[in-house]
């Protein structure tokens, strides 16, 4: 019966080559960790590193290519290429950081790396999926891996609490997303993003219909939860604080990158004809997210919680670019996310290096006097804090500059003003860390616990990224522009 025929071609496999590479390596590590002796499990992390590098190499094929695979389920185009490369970079940095951290905290099992790789597979599927089904499945692969990773320190009550909270609320959010997808399917008759776009363009009478609008609203709730937008952010501080710090960094960068990849893809690829409707919602979300994130971050004394609220606020800045929706805005989203990867992973790595087994030293008071005892580490932290606050010449400044100028260009003056005011407020709590590091006497002796060369390499890469994107941003912006050219 010719109705059902399948042919998996070479192109199909090349399109998903990075995902295949990561999945393959994850399975190999899983088997290796089952047979390796406990004292020799150190090399599992290096195997994971090799897997990420292999995936990066296999991604090389996708430069400048536009092709879809498996009957239009996944697609490689400049946008998904950019996000896949970014997700692999995040994955590389996180594995580097984990090499020392996992050993120190006794997260000895290979499953830790397996789950990181699987989470990255899910993220890449979200970035390259052009069918709502694939986006949902990718989101689930990612989320389930992260739920487990958050609770992988089973002896730590806070880690278990984080995993449980994230799991319950995350499952609820997935249900919202799925319900939204179902309603969109009910009103357009297709799950294919291009198909949805086509139906809405041809039969514009559908676009004002309540079922479609409800579907889009529920979709926004589902994505908003994963991106920790206000008012769907309640889980963020507890989960970010309780999860192992390397996983917190992974959540703050990887999950956000993948979430925004799918967000951009769905809204600018499938629902551009509804832009007038969803821009209003996004405007409110952007303002609420920036303001609530920054104001609550002011009163935090734990640096992981502070960075959690700061990551909420940064999602708000990215939404400003999303609302602007012009060329500079969408490329600004990409630029901002990349800058955020460097500064955020860098900051979390410093937090990791300043902790010891069983003693995380995550209170801001613990940072007193670090500027004198560990001058290089403090310098790196200063760079990341300046970048998060948006001080030139760092990546954070350029990212905010592009985002706010996009808003001004699209005549969202108030949004830009609120954003700039928010960054001024945010400067207070970032610079407070600097004041503690350089102008306060340490209350007690600080020793670096898990000093590992790999983590130092991660910090060096992050500092390089922050400065490179801050001083010479044009190459990165040009790359971001090329990546979204086909959307416009």
């Amino acid at each position, binding site marked *: 019966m010719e109705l*059902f025929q399948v042919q998996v071609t070479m192109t199909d496999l090349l399109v998903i080559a990075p995902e295949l590479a990561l999945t393959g390596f994850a399975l190999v590590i899983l088997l290796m960790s089952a047979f390796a002796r*406990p004292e020799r499990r150190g090399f599992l992390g290096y195997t994971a590193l090799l897997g990420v590098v292999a995936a990066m190499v296999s991604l090389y094929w996708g430069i400048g290519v536009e092709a879809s695979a*498996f009957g239009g389920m996944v697609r490689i185009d400049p946008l998904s290429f950019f996000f896949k490369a970014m997700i692999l970079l995040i994955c590389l940095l996180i594995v580097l950081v984990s090499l020392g951290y996992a050993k120190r905290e006794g997260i000895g099992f290979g499953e830790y790396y397996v789950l990181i790789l699987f989470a990255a597979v899910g993220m890449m599927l979200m970035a390259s999926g052009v069918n709502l089904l694939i986006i949902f*499945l990718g989101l689930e692969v990612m989320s389930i891996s992260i739920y487990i990773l958050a609770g*992988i320190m089973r002896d730590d009550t806070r880690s278990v609490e984080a995993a449980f909270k994230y799991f319950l609320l995350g499952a609820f959010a997935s249900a919202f997303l799925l319900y939204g997808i179902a309603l969109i399917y009910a*009103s357009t008759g297709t799950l294919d993003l291009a198909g949805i776009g086509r139906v809405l363009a041809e039969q514009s009478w559908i676009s004002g*219909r309540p079922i*479609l609008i409800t579907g889009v609203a529920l979709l926004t709730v589902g994505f908003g939860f994963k991106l920790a937008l206000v008012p769907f952010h309640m889980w963020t501080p507890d989960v970010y604080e309780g999860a192992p710090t390397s996983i917190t960094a992974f959540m703050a960068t990887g999950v956000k990158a993948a979430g925004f990849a799918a967000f951009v893809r769905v809204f600018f690829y499938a629902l551009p004809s509804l832009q007038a409707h969803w821009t209003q919602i996004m405007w409110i979300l952007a303002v609420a997210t920036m303001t609530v994130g920054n104001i609550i971050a002011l009163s935090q004394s734990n640096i992981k919680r502070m960075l959690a609220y700061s990551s909420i606020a940064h999602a708000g800045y990215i939404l400003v670019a999303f609302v602007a929706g012009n060329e500079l805005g969408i490329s600004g989203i990409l630029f901002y996310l990349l800058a955020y990867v460097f500064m955020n992973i860098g900051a979390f790595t410093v937090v990791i290096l300043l902790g010891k087994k069983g003693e995380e030293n995550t209170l801001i008071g613990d940072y007193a006097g670090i500027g004198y005892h560990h001058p290089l580490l403090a310098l790196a932290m200063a760079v990341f804090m300046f970048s998060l606050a948006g001080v030139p010449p760092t990546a954070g400044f350029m990212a905010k500059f592009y985002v706010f100028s996009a808003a001004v260009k699209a005549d969202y003056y108030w949004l830009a003003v609120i954003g700039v005011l928010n960054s001024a407020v945010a400067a207070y709590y970032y610079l407070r860390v600097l004041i503690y590091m350089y102008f306060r006497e340490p209350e007690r002796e600080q020793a670096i616990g898990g000093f590992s060369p790999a983590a130092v390499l991660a910090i060096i890469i992050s500092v390089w990224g922050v400065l490179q994107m801050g001083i010479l941003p044009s190459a990165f912006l040009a790359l971001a522009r090329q990546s979204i050219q086909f959307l416009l």
Partner: protein
Amino acid sequence: MTGSIFYWIAFVVTALAAVFAAVMVITRRNPIHSAMFLVLNFLCIAVLYLLLNAQFIAIIQVMIYAGAIMMLVIFVIMLLSVEEEERRRKIPVPLAQMLGMVLVFILFAQLIFGVVVKVLPGEQGEFSPERIAELGDVKTIAGLLFTKFLFPFEVASIILLVGIIGAVILSKKER
């Protein structure tokens, strides 16, 4: 079959029963009662599948959800044995719940409005109940699962693998 009086009566009765059971699931204080209403809900959904000519999915729904999964749920509830006083405790209705109720009401209103004004799909699906009856239910599902939806099918296997890994590492004994 579609369009006959019997069809509509069957649909309305099972749909209302499903909604009733779903409401009972979340309002019962005794978890066993909730679980039983969930079984009822699953059975009603199975009947809805039958009405759409999807016999295979209906049977799977009964076997896997109403059978296997609910069995597991009831086992867990029995093993955990929720305290009597815990069960009797009155749960206050805070602002969030009121707000949630308002939002759910708006959602329902929108859905009902959407159905009343007859928003029909932009593109009719290829596999309508009539066409499935013609092709054969199991054949259609199997064919689609291994051709058009091959890739999502494979991704789903990764989800299951991750779930198994999680269950093992979160529950295995300390070495």
